């Protein structure tokens, strides 16, 4: 119980630290997440994103800027908390607690890059195509963001649960 409580406390501290870093960071400080996201979006859409110091990654042909607010750090925090909640019961020793936190952090980072890249790729497609909707492009972008981020969290939760169940079954065998 003590180890699990320590994991929860550590997870809250990590999430808080991420949030603080994100709040204070400039675009240049978020290259650890912006760079892989921009590269993945470039691979998905076939357009090239170039680094604009202090701004983020810009695609001249799509007129699209991947800036600080597009970094997906909030999604990473949500995903991290969710994965810790899903696999946190595995933390029985200090080593396993450390593994749970490390795996959750790595999983949430990979998920954030993937889901955010998908969201931006869809957003660039939506921006390039006329949609006969009565909504503004900003509202469509926001709506798309909510759907993709929430869908990404749902998918990640399903995957985490399945992996956790499979690992439990292997231990039982």
């Amino acid at each position, binding site marked *: 119980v003590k180890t699990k409580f320590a994991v929860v406390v550590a997870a809250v501290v990590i999430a808080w630290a991420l949030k603080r870093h994100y709040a204070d960071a400039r675009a240049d400080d978020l290259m650890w997440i912006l760079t892989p996201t921009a590269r993945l979006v470039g691979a998905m859409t076939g357009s090239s994103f170039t680094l604009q110091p202090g701004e983020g990654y810009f695609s001249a042909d799509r007129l699209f800027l991947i800036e600080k607010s597009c970094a997906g750090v909030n999604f990473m*925090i*949500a995903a991290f908390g*969710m994965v810790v*909640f899903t696999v946190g019961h595995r933390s029985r020793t200090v080593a396993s607690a450390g593994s749970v936190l490390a795996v959750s952090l790595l999983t949430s980072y990979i998920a954030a890059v993937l889901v955010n890249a998908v969201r931006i790729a869809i957003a660039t497609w939506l921006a390039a195509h006329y949609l006969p909707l009565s909504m503004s492009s900003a509202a469509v972008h926001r709506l798309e963001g909510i759907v993709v*981020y*929430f869908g990404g*969290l*749902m998918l*990640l939760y399903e995957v985490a649960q399945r992996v956790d169940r499979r690992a439990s079954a292997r231990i039982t065998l």
Partner: protein
Amino acid sequence: MSSQSRIVAAFRRAAVPLAAYYAVTLALPLANGAAQSGARFAAHASLVLVVPPVAIVLACGLYAIGRSVSGWFVRAIQCGSRSGVHSAAPVNRRANIRAHASPATSSLPADPIRG
């Protein structure tokens, strides 16, 4: 499973992702004083609150439609593969077993319990 119970099950399944999403998009900004921005945050909050549940209900609807369409296709293929039988009635496996087994040679009871 009725559509209502399917939706309830989907919401139960989505509880953790929904809680994580609301925590980051609503609880954290509120804790940081986002409520002071007034109407702007209210518009954001209403959209964030409404869209995920609507997406869950829509996904349930699409899933139900997908299931009924695929079930219809499976039934149509099964009906088509049965030689000489042209019926749109749903295929009953037990009825098929009974129909194809001769009563004199079959050792199966009329309604076997399958474990």
